[in-house]
């Protein structure tokens, strides 16, 4: 078990390293002087031509890509993301503040989405193929088709303008997060409902279930102990992926509701060519993906240790 954990950790580190290499390659291959790019990425507002020359010598550009990469990577590994070229302030604190808006929203949206899709899926599977089934799946499909900005605006129009129940924009209070969470949740529901539905149907058709019924185990127990755990497996994967997507910031929703978030952070940084912010955001998002996936893999090992082994 411990060996497996380290294996997964190693894999995660490998992904992170790959991300770092790709990010750095973009810097390196950007038009212009790579030494300048690195200097900008590292010191930005404080860059001077002398500094650029120093970097050029220090890294030794005849040695090329990998030594420059290492030079660039070192401060990042200790969490020193440098300073923004726009504001001159340290990047990391700003990033963390932004994240503190995104994380609760993402978790809320995921929870709402999960609940809605589980309810829809259970209704759908009461009579597979029946009208309720088609209806529930239909709702999910419609949800996938509805663009977030359209729905967001609609919700604002209804609940904020018309009924004045909820605030329209900003992120001041928790109730400011309700409408954005609902908007995001619809996308989550669209993705999860079908997965949960087929997970339940597959779990119900496992070959050993009749034997349990014949043994006298109650339908409730069978449902709880033998169908739900099996159906949960695909749900966990997709939930994890959805969470990762939500955490990296749903830009549309952030813009509509005028909320700060990782998505807008990244877009603005790219727009302003603010390298330190861009690379910080990219690395944090990659980190989120890796950690979420690590958790998913660990949960799998607990539920069904055969997953991932060669001869299951």
């Amino acid at each position, binding site marked *: 078990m411990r060996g497996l954990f380290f294996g997964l950790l190693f894999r995660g580190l490998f992904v992170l390293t790959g991300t770092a290499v790709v990010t750095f390659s973009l810097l390196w291959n950007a038009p212009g002087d790579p030494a300048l790019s690195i200097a900008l990425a590292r010191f930005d507002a404080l860059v001077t031509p002398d500094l650029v020359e120093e970097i050029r010598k220090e890294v030794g550009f005849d040695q090329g890509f990998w030594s420059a990469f290492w030079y660039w990577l070192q401060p990042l590994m200790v969490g020193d993301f440098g300073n923004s070229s726009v504001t001159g302030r340290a990047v990391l604190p700003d990033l963390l503040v932004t994240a503190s808006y995104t994380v609760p929203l993402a978790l809320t949206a995921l929870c709402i989405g999960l609940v809605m899709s589980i309810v829809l899926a259970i209704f759908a599977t009461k009579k597979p193929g029946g009208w309720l089934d088609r209806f529930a799946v239909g709702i999910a499909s419609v949800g996938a088709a509805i663009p977030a900005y359209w729905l967001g605006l609609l919700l604002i129009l209804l609940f904020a303008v018309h009924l004045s129940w909820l605030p329209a924009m900003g992120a001041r209070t928790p109730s400011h997060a309700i409408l954005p969470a609902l908007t995001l949740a619809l996308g989550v529901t669209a993705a999860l409902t079908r997965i949960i539905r087929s997970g339940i149907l597959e779990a119900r058709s*496992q*070959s*050993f279930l*009749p*034997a*349990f019924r*014949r*043994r*006298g*185990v*109650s339908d409730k*127990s069978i449902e709880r*102990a*033998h169908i739900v*755990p*099996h159906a949960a497996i695909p749900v966990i994967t997709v939930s994890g992926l959805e969470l990762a997507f939500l955490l990296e910031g749903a830009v549309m929703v952030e813009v509509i509701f005028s909320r700060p978030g990782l998505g807008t952070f990244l877009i603005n940084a790219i727009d302003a060519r603010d390298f330190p912010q861009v690379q910080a955001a990219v690395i944090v998002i990659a980190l989120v993906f890796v950690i979420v996936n690590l958790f998913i893999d660990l949960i799998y090992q607990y*539920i*069904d*240790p*055969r997953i991932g082994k060669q001869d299951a």
Partner: protein
Amino acid sequence: MTLSVSGLTSTRSGRTILYPTSLTFEPGARIGLVGSSGSGKSTLGHVLIDTLRAQGELVAHVPQSPDEALDPLRRLDFHWREAEVAMNTEHDRQKQEKLFDALHIKGADLTKRPWSWSRGMQQRFVIAMALIGTPSLIILDEPTSALDPVVAADTMKLLQEYLSHKNTAMLFITHDLGLASKHVDRLMVMHEGKIVEDATTQDILQTPKTEAAKLLSSHKSWLSLPC
């Protein structure tokens, strides 16, 4: 206590798989149900257990392979406790040990998932679960086909020994007449959804009357073939 059922039948998409059948099981009876594939014998086994359970009897059914009886996501001790609850018996540690001992799975690690055990042990575990609470009837559906011969022979021997002084009746369903004849004293031959012959093992082996029985009897083993 003698068990009786009547009117066992089964249809699928309009076709009759099992014609109305009645069966009686005396305590301690050893009965074989033999037929070619498609004769309806497995169906009879399923309908039989469903009906008897609905009548409130304590009966058990052991499927052909442990894959069809155990949930790979759950531990074996969970399976056992669940079975105890299902059969309305208290947790009896001693009884469990006796059963495990008789079926040669004593001392095995119950905290594991089914696939950690060998198939033979899994199958014997399923049989042990079936014997919780001492059912009036245990139905075995092709109990040896998923196992190696040495393990299979061993398992049947252990089961027969365990049942030898108990009132539990046994129904042995198989396509192999030679195999069945080694373990039962009465044989029912099934053909196309009906029981066409029902007699003692000796009679079926030596003087089969129906076509189906004759065919099964002449093919009962490899070394006495008329070729």
